[in-house]
Structure formats: C-alpha cells, structure tokens
C-alpha cells in the first residue's frame, strides 16, 4: 500500500516534470526561430490585428466600467476619513500598476487566446501543420513566433488603453458625478504617479503577453484528436493562462515593492 502510494506520487511528479519540460522546450524552440531567422512581418501584422486591434473595443469597454466602478468604491472608502482628494491617484495607481495589465490580459485571453488555441488546434487535427512541415515551412516560425511577437506588442498597448480609459471613467464618476474637483483629481494624480509605476504596468503586460501566447499556442499545437480535443485545448488554454496571469502578477508585484 505504502509502496504503491510512493509509486503513484513518483509517477505524478514525473508527469509534471515532463509537462514542464515540454512547455519549456516549446518556448525555447519558439525563441530559437524568433532570433535565428528573419521575422515574418506580414504574419506578425496579421496577428497584431487579430490579437490587438480586434480586442480594442472590449478592452476599452471593460476599462471604462472598471474605472467607473472603482472610482465609486474608492470614493466611498475615502469619504469615511475625508480623503476624497486622493481619489485621482488611487484610481490611477491601481489601474496603471494592477488593474490595467491584469484585467486587459484576462479579457484578451478570453477573446483572442481561446481563438488562437482553437485555430492552431484545428490546424493540427486537419493536418494543416503537417502540410506546413511537408512544404518545408517551419510551423514554429510560421505559427508560433508571429503570435508571440504580436501578443508581446499588443498586450502593453491594450493595457495602456485600459488604464487611460479607466482613468477617464474614474474622472466621469469622481468629478462629474460625485463632485471632486477636476484640478484635485488630475493634480494629485500627477503628484503620486511615478515613472516606475508606468514601467511596472508595462513590464506586467509584456510578461502576460508572453504567457498567454505561449500557453495558447502550446495547447493548440499539441491538441488531442477530434472536436473534443480542440474544445479541451481551448478551455485549458484560457484557464491555465488566466491562473498563470494571477500567480505571476503576485510574484512580479511582490518582487518590485
């Protein structure tokens, strides 16, 4: 009984190591083709449109409402001790350092990450990836690298849009609805927000872009057979990406503080 438990644990540990190794090799191969061969700019541009441009509306919409509801909540808390003047910096710092990168990344994962995994997964099960290999077109170079580059470019931009529109949403609620003065809202913001806060937000977005494109491409690339396999790959890619975003967010924040 005891021995079989140990065996089971060992098998489980080996399975996890194998999976991590497989993820690691996938990323290394993608990096090899990223730096070892000319970039396919046309493909990168197509994927920036797919991942970035087409996610703009949903990111702006969620950004605006996140900023608005956040301003409402913060105003309520600050008014308890007469600190309404800190509404602007609180909204801005939270959005730039945290909510902008994280929520926009989660939104893009839901919209583009899932589509990415299913598209590559369908290419796998319909032998389109085999066709690329047979035509001597490296599938990492053609499929994975453009998506990774496009995500790393798009995520910070969309994160910045999210924060900007969120700050504007906070302004609408705080200044126009709750009566905080415009000068206080923006003046205090410029006093408190520093360059390192913006750098932090951008760093987070960059790493989230890498994580999401890595996981979604991997899941699509190694999808199991049939419609069920593609469905499973799509669901797993979104769940794993989302969880990794939150875990990585904690670590990167705790290191930088």
């Amino acid at each position, binding site marked *: 009984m005891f021995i079989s438990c140990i065996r089971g644990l060992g098998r489980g540990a080996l399975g996890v190591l194998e999976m991590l190794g497989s993820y690691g090799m996938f990323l290394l191969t993608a990096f090899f083709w990223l730096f070892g061969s000319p970039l396919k700019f046309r493909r990168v541009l197509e994927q920036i449109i797919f991942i970035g441009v087409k996610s703009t509306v949903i990111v702006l919409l969620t950004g605006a409402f996140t900023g608005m509801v956040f301003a409402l909540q913060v105003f309520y808390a600050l008014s308890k001790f007469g600190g309404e003047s800190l509404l602007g910096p609180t909204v801005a710092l939270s959005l730039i350092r945290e909510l902008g990168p994280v929520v926009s990344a989660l939104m893009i994962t839901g919209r583009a990450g899932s589509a990415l995994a299913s598209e590559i997964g369908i290419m796998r099960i319909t032998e389109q990836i085999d*066709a690329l290999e*047979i035509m001597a077109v490296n599938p990492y170079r053609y499929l994975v690298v453009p998506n990774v580059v496009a995500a790393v470019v798009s995520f910070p931009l969309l994160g910045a849009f999210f924060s900007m529109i969120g700050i504007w949403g906070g302004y609408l609620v705080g200044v126009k609805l709750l009566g905080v003065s415009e000068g206080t809202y923006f003046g205090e913001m410029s006093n408190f927000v520093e360059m390192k806060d913006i750098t932090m937000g951008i760093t987070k977005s960059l790493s989230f872009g890498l994580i999401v494109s890595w996981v979604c491409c991997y899941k699509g690339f190694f999808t199991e057979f049939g419609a069920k396999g593609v469905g499973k790959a799509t669901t797993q890619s979104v769940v794993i990406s989302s969880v990794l975003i939150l875990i990585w967010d904690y670590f990167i924040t705790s290191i930088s503080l």
Partner: protein
Amino acid sequence: MIIVRDAYKSFNGNQVLKGLNLEILEGEMFALIGRSGLGKSVLLKHIIGIMKPDRGDIFVDEQNVGSLHGKQLEAMRRKFGYLFQEGALFDSLTVFENVAFPLREKTAMKEPEIKDRVFVELEHMGLKKDAHKYPAELSGGMRKRTSLARAMIMQPSIMLFDEPTTGLDPIIGQSILNYIQLCHRRLGFTGIIVTHDVPRVFTIVQKIAMMDDGRIIINGTYDEIVRQGNPAFQQFLSGSIDGPLHYV
C-alpha cells in the same frame, strides 16, 4: 530512388511496421494497397521524415532520412509533394493563396510571376474560375484538385498521394486519377499512391505493393501479381471477407 530497409515502428506498444522492405525506382508510379489502418499512411510519413522509424533505415536519393535534421531535412523535403487524404488546405486562405503558398514561402519569386504560375496550375486542374473561393466553399473533388495543384506547384521530383480518391464518386475519382497521370507525364516524378481504389488505380501505375501485418507481402507489376495468383491479392480485389486477410 526510395529504399525502405527493415523499418520498424510502434505506437503505444502497437507494432505498425514490422521489418518493412520496399524499393521504388526513380520516375516510377507505385501503388501501395492493403487493409485500412495498417500503416500505409504511416509509411508515407516515414518516407518524408515527419516520423522516424524505431529501427531500420529509409533512403531517399541515397540520403538516410532518419539521420537528417534542420536544413538538410528541409532541403530533402523540398523534393517532395504530398497529397493529403483530406486535402489539408489552409482554411483561412483562398484556393489561389493555398496554391501560391509554397511559392511565397519557399522561393524569391515576385508576385506577378507567382500569379502566372498559380493560374497555369489552376488551369491544369480546371480551377481557374474558383481561385477566389475558400476551401469551405469547395466540393470534395475541388478540394483534392486544389491540394494537388498546391503539391505540384513546386514541381516535385517525388509525389506521395494518400488515398487521393477516397470519399469521391467514381467519376470525380477517375478525374483525379487522370490528373495524377497527367501530372506524372508532365513532371516525371516518382509517385507513391496509397489507395483502396482497386483495380482502377492499376491503370496509372507501373508497380503495385500490398502491405499487411507491417510488411510488404506482394510486390511487382500487375501482370506479375496476377500470374502469381496470390490469394490475399485476389481477396483484396474482390472485397471478400473470406480469405487469408482478416478483419482488424
């Protein structure tokens, strides 16, 4: 010339190739027949280097495919064209873009030249007026012809056909075989056709091999095989369930 020497391959303990030997001469059209699910397509994927044998060697023009990596493997694959059973067309690209794909990716040709080449190929396949369509808008026969045009556009010296007529009605199936024959005459490639379309395929090939239980059990010209009166071949031809070949 393609030589498969004593090739073994298993998947999760299931032995698919069991010491398979085969030799295909340059410029020869070769039919590979046998029951479904016994490794004919797997053999094609070994020849082109997508899969590697557990044991044994596969030589293409005297190069051992199993030992090739990176640029060497890429260079070897450029000799090949491959017609997939389901076409494997890129569903986000039009017929024109699918056929132009290898030229755009693997040559330095300018766009006007690519356009000319693609339309010539589409003309051969009777697809010129369908160039703007997406794979989802095509019939089975048109998909096969598009896939064939994509495979032929690089003028390969070796063509592998994985069940080119499966799922097509007899007339469309015959037209696909005619296209293959025309392409062979035009380009003179070495061709391997994996098919169940017997006896029709025998009209376009010089040699036939039958695969069973992971090995080649019959190999020769049609006349030679008929003269031998091999019962497995007779059973496969007649589609009888009684005989030396069993259900899998």
